[in-house]
Every structure is written in structure tokens, then in C-alpha cells.
């Protein structure tokens, strides 16, 4: 394929992404072309690599997220861009973030299961906020008494946090091997009991 044809494709793809206002998948990009001039998936992917390269020293970059590709402001320029908007970027409470984290890492998960791990009730407000933002949704009901709703995260959640998939979430910290914990505990408990006992005799 000729170089100037590819350059033209690159410009068209850039135009599409800047006009769309949402991420576009490879196939959605291809659909913008009439059938007789529609690039193959392979070519489209090549053009996207070209476009990513062409954004090297620009104010924006090509980003691949869950629902497709989008052009977005480079993170290093966010401080200047933020001055354009009166409102401060929204902050989320720890309760909301912990609930979101549990849904993200343990989906599908019921509210009761979230409460069990967090040790506190989950307010309906939090679930409502997460649903309204379209970050989580009900994907079914657990087959137990009360048939509680099971929640899972959405593509919009991944898009918002610049992820292509759940596998890109920061890895959960390791839990130490259970047997090891058992052994250590065995030791510590003895120690503590002895300590307690000796304390008693001292007092």
C-alpha cells in the first residue's frame, strides 16, 4: 500500500476520533468507510500505530481503552487543562472506592458479600452513584434466599480509568500462604499465652 494513501487514512482516522466524542473500535472506524474503500482490519491497525507515532510530540495521544481507541490530552498537560474548568475534579469517598474495588476484583458480587469483606454496611447511595455513573451494573441475581443482585463493572468503568480490560487493574497484594500463616500463628499464640501468663504472675 502506498505511503501517501496510508497518510490519508491516518488523517481520516484522526478526524473520526476527534469528531466521535467516544472511543471507536477498529470495526467502527472501518465502518465509516464505504464498502469499496474499506480498509482491512490489518491495515486499520497499522494506521492506528502510525497515528500513535504521529502524536509523539503533540498535546494528545492515542489511547486504547475497553470500548476502543480515543485521542486524549497527555497526562503531563492536565495541570494547564484543569484551569479551563471552574469545577475541581470530583473526589470519591473511600467507602465508594472500596466498594468499587470489590466489585472490580471480585465480580460478580452481591452487596452482602461486599459488606462481609468490608465489615460495614454499604449505603444505597454508593450503589446508586456507581450505577448512575454507569461504572457498575446488575448482571444477575444469586440463587439464595432474597435473590440478591450481583454487580459487575462496565466498559465505561474501564474507559474512565484508562483500562482496556480488568486484567490491567493494579494487581491485588499477595496474601501470605495460609499454611505459613497457620504455623506462625501457632508460634505467636503460644508466645502470647505465655506472655499473658507471665504477666499475671508478675502483677
Amino acid at each position, binding site marked *: 500500500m502506498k505511503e501517501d494513501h496510508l497518510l490519508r487514512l491516518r488523517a481520516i482516522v484522526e478526524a473520526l476520533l476527534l469528531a466521535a466524542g467516544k472511543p471507536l473500535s477498529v470495526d467502527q472506524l472501518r465502518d465509516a468507510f464505504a464498502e469499496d474503500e474499506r480498509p482491512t482490519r490489518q491495515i486499520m491497525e497499522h494506521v492506528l500505530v502510525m497515528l500513535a507515532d504521529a502524536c509523539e510530540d503533540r498535546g494528545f495521544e492515542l489511547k486504547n481503552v475497553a470500548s476502543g481507541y480515543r485521542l486524549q490530552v497527555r497526562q503531563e498537560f*492536565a495541570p494547564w487543562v484543569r484551569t479551563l474548568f471552574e469545577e475541581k475534579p470530583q473526589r470519591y469517598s473511600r467507602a465508594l472506592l472500596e466498594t468499587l474495588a470489590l466489585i*472490580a476484583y471480585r465480580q460478580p458480587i452481591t452487596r452482602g458479600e461486599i459488606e462481609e*469483606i468490608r*465489615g460495614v454496611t454499604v449505603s444505597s447511595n454508593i450503589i446508586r452513584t456507581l450505577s448512575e455513573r454507569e461504572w457498575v451494573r446488575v448482571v444477575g441475581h444469586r440463587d439464595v434466599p432474597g435473590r440478591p443482585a450481583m454487580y459487575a463493572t462496565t466498559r465505561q468503568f474501564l474507559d474512565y480509568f*484508562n483500562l482496556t480490560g480488568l486484567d490491567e487493574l493494579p494487581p491485588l497484594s499477595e496474601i501470605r500462604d495460609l499454611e505459613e*500463616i497457620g504455623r506462625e500463628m501457632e508460634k505467636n499464640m503460644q508466645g*502470647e499465652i505465655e506472655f499473658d501468663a507471665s504477666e499475671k504472675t508478675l502483677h
Partner: protein
Amino acid sequence: MTDEITEVSGSEPEQPAEPDNPLALVSGKPLVDLPKDLYIPPDALAVFLETFEGPLDLLLYLIRRQNMDILDIDVSEITRQYMDYISAVEAMRFELAAEYLVMAATLAEIKSRMLLPRQEAEDDEEVDPRAELIRRLQQYERYKQAAEDIDDLPRMDRDTFYGSAALPQLPSSQPYPDVAMRELLLAMQGVLQRADLFTSHHVEKEKLSTRERMSQILSLLQGDRYLTFESLFSPEEGRLGVVVSFLATLELVKESLIEIVQADVFAPIHIRARANASD
């Protein structure tokens, strides 16, 4: 938020609270009975409940304050601090403290068990409450960390922004409407009712496949002026197909749309479109 608590509790109780720190805006008396490092101004107790994400969070906080590994919890010490904390909270916001009270009971149970001599056989059958607590703390700590990690991910409208450009003038497009078969049939029904074609026997008997074949023959004749009669029939279509073609030909002749030509007796029969013939 945890940091704020740390800040407050880290400051010496003797020091006057800083007036611009909401946690320290206290007019009531300090609870001098509380351990110094756990000092909470009474009016901040409500804040306390909002600051910690529950009893597990509070326990983690206490464990960290003492630089302890979760696995090495000194249950006695933690329980004492926790109880002090909770009794202060309970006095102020009793209705909010239920979850904390359950934890207090759990801690008390663990502590009391440890004072008893271990009975191997019995313990094996029961869930060790200390192991269970540690498991829960570890579990919770993972997701507490995960929540912070998610908060640190670059996110829209904070760390990055959608790039969009103004649209050029877009030519208006006229995409094709969808038509359901039902709409087509309803339209036909309307026509039939108005034209009262139902009374015509002709319409009822007519086979659509014949009509379709008539169109096909006519369009063939558009390209070639003449067709041999035989070429209208193809054996693959079977007897029914031949009949359909024959009926179509007869209908076309009847409607004066084609004519059949034969130069001589036994010579090949040709057909041609009447309209074509006349130009």
C-alpha cells in the same frame, strides 16, 4: 482521611487544637481517661465513624500505629485500645456503633480464649476466632489497598481529557428506512380494499411465481432481442419450473407483451418483446 486522624491523635493532647482543623474544633472537655495516642476530642467522635471505614479499618489503623504485622497482632494490647476507642464512641453515637461493638465482642472472645489452656481436640473442630479475624483483616487490607490503587489510576477529567475537535459542515445524509414485511402487506391490503380486487377471480388464482417469471423473461428480452423458446426452460427447475415458465410465456403473450415467432414449420421458435419489436 486516615492521615487526618493520625495528625490529630499524633498531636499532644496538651496542645490547643488548631482552630482551622475541623477535627480539632472542640469546645467540650477532653476525655482525659483515653490513652494519649488515641485521644479524640468528643465532638470529633462522629467524624471518627466517618473517617474509619468500619471496625476492620480501625483495627488496621491500630495495628499500624504500633508497627505490627497483622500476623503478629498483640491481641491484648489491640483489644484494650479498641475497647477504649469504642466506649468513647458508644457514649456519643450509640446507634452508629453496632458494627464496632460486634468487633469488640469478637476481640474479647479471642482474648478470653487465649487465657484458657489450649485444648487441642476441641480447637480442631472449631473455627479459631483469631485466625478468622486475621483472615478478615488481611482480606480487607487487600481491597483497601486496591481502592487506593484505583484512585491513583489516571482518570478522565482529572488526569486526562477527551480530545475533540469542532465538526466540519456535514452534508445531510439520507439513510434508507427500514420496512417490515407486515407494513408491505398492510399496504397491499389497503390497496385491495379500495380497488375491491377480491371480487376478481383472476387475482385469486394467479400464482406469484408466474408473475415473477414474467418479469424475468421480460428482462432477459431487454438484453437480447430474441430468445429461443427452449432457452426459457431449464431442466434443473423440474416439471413445476417448466410449467411456471410456460404459464408465464402464455400470460405475456395474452397481455401482448411478447410475441412468438417461427420462420418455418419445425424451425426454431423465437420470442421477442413487443415493445422492442416496434422500435
